[in-house]
């Protein structure tokens, strides 16, 4: 099969779901004529018309709020937030409204919306086009949060998100859009939420990551193979629901866990995974649960050397793994 990009998987999921179900519609800034700033929605407006591929005003609370309302009246909205860095004005709509609609109405109303959020750094995006925001949202009950790292998963997870009866945040790492290539299953392809994928097997330590960091972990594991270390890499894919059993099973098999995320270290989602392992797999551990993450600084600078210093690199991950295995 042909090698295709991760963003192809995203575009294909939306196009196929819009074709299949007339209730599905896309809204966001520049998603129409331009096809999105990353071209994720390229060609969709020509195919499905300006009402179903709607260019919204520059207002993120509005994008999510309109999506919520539209979902209450029979539509299935796929809202694009142009950059994760811009999602903060929509925090209230997501946290206080979308995720609580079903709960506060005792199941009478629901909010089947998908919020697509391009996140992450390493793209010379500076302080305001590089942020990771998953910790804010993975904290919130009532919201599912997923993050693909392969083109096939991008299609499968997004299709599942669009068909999900509840709000889903779909995190797309911008650097993976065209960097990561792979096969995309043609036709209907669904990836179930809450299921991690083992990307590399190994017996000396387990690396747990999502999004771009999966690939940095794979690079680190490859380089350590030459040193005789066999590193398992677990791609979470789904932060909420968290693939808890698979995490614990993986840690039990290697007795060493390294969690890698590109958000700030303190209070990042990896801290939750560390707590889970400490609470439920303590007896399996031969070394302290360890994290590699970004420093506790606002975001990554525009300067390339400083950007690289911020982002967890394969070298930093490899160094942490050596320490972990030697413990």
């Amino acid at each position, binding site marked *: 099969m042909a090698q295709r990009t991760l963003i192809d998987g995203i575009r294909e999921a939306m196009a196929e779901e819009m074709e299949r179900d007339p209730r599905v519609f896309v809204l966001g800034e520049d998603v129409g004529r331009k096809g999105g700033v990353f071209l994720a929605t390229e060609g969709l407006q020509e195919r499905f018309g300006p009402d179903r591929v709607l260019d919204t005003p520059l207002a993120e609370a509005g994008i999510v*709020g*309109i999506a*919520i309302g539209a979902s209450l009246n*029979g539509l299935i909205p796929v809202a694009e937030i142009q950059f994760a860095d811009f999602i903060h004005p929509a925090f*209230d709509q997501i946290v206080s*409204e979308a995720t609580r609609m079903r709960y506060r109405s*005792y*199941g009478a109303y629901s909010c089947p919306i998908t919020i697509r959020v391009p996140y992450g750094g390493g793209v010379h995006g500076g302080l305001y086009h590089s942020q990771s925001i998953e910790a804010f949202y993975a904290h919130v009950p009532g919201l599912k949060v997923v993050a693909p790292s392969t083109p096939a998963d991008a299609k499968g997870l997004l299709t599942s998100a669009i068909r999900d*009866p509840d709000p889903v945040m779909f995190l797309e790492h911008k650097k993976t859009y065209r960097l990561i290539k792979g096969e995309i299953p043609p036709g209907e392809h669904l990836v179930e939420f809450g299921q991690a994928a083992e990307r590399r097997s190994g017996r000396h330590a387990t690396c747990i990551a999502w999004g771009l960091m999966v690939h940095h972990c794979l690079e680190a594991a490859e380089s350590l193979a030459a040193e005789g270390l066999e590193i398992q890499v677990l791609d979470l894919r789904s932060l909420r629901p968290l693939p808890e059993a698979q995490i614990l099973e993986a840690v039990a098999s290697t007795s060493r866990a390294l969690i890698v995320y590109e958000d700030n270290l303190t209070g990042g989602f990896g801290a939750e995974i560390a707590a889970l392992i400490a609470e439920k797999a303590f007896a399996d551990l031969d070394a302290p649960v360890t994290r590699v993450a970004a420093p506790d600084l606002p975001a990554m600078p525009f300067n390339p050397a400083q950007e690289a210093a911020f982002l967890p690199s394969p070298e930093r991950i490899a160094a942490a793994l050596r320490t972990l295995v030697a413990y």
Partner: protein
Amino acid sequence: MSAPPKEPKGTGPAGSLDRHSKLGLSSERLLWMYRQMLLARSVDRRMWLLNRQGKAPFVVSGRGHEAAQVGAAAAMRPGVDWLVPYYRDLAFCLALGVTAADFMLSVFARASDPSSGGRQMPSHFSNVEARIVSTSSVVGPKQLHACGIAYAAQLRGLDEVAVSCIGEGGTSEGDWHEAMNFASIHRLPFICLVQDNDYAISVPRRLQMAVADVAHRAKGYGMPGVSVDGGDVLEVYTAMRRAMERARSGQGPTLIAARVARFTSHSSDDDQRRYRPAEELEAMLALDPLERFGEYLTRQGLLTPEQDSTLKDDCHEEVEEATRRAEVAPSPEPSDIHRHLFQEG
């Protein structure tokens, strides 16, 4: 709506102008509207009593807003048009089909409370059959939900109008601005009814906005802004009916600013005597929208003092019965808190 019967002007017994016939409102409809206002007032009084008795930890009231709400509701099609309410919309929701019994279950936070199963504070209305949308306590964000509902109606080719309510203070929220802007761009079947009662808790209108009337804000969005006396049920009905016709004929949204009086403090946790002058409160309470409508009906020969007191007794009894039943209705089990986070089954 059928054409009103041709009648000479000013045929009321006291020579007062008949304002309802030309609106096509029958005497039965007028008396229904009046009864809805009385019922809302009766429920409202009862919930405050329950609060003072220590049986209801929190109440928030719409007393003084009844004419605006019933006038607006009377122009809507219950179960077809949507209401995204705010916490003062007791009379509005009763007029669209919520019952006093439903509401009292929410005051006591009972398991059978149809709005939320006892989860939300009272006056956080929700009713699927009546198309009343569940809302948070915050008034700004829900304005966008009404626009989304209207956008879906338009996209799906449905003849439905979405109405949202908010106070004048809420119009300071950014989400309200985003909603008005979006609604106007797409000429949505959307109506925003602002119930302007002069105060956002304690902050007067002059500290919320530099314009004298909320309706003036509509111009900036390219939509009509209509200012009405919210104590006059027929004036609100007239404006609302016109806005509904606009919305249903594809002409777009309308902002209606209804000047109303907040008879009670913001909520049971507030005391407005601390920040409102005594003379102001006294003057406000002297102009009760229920009395105004009752007087109109009396002048039109549609309501006798006997009928009036029968209606009031009926409402009182309905509310007493609702209260008695709600008080003994079962509470939800504590373990029930885990239900309905996501779709079940």
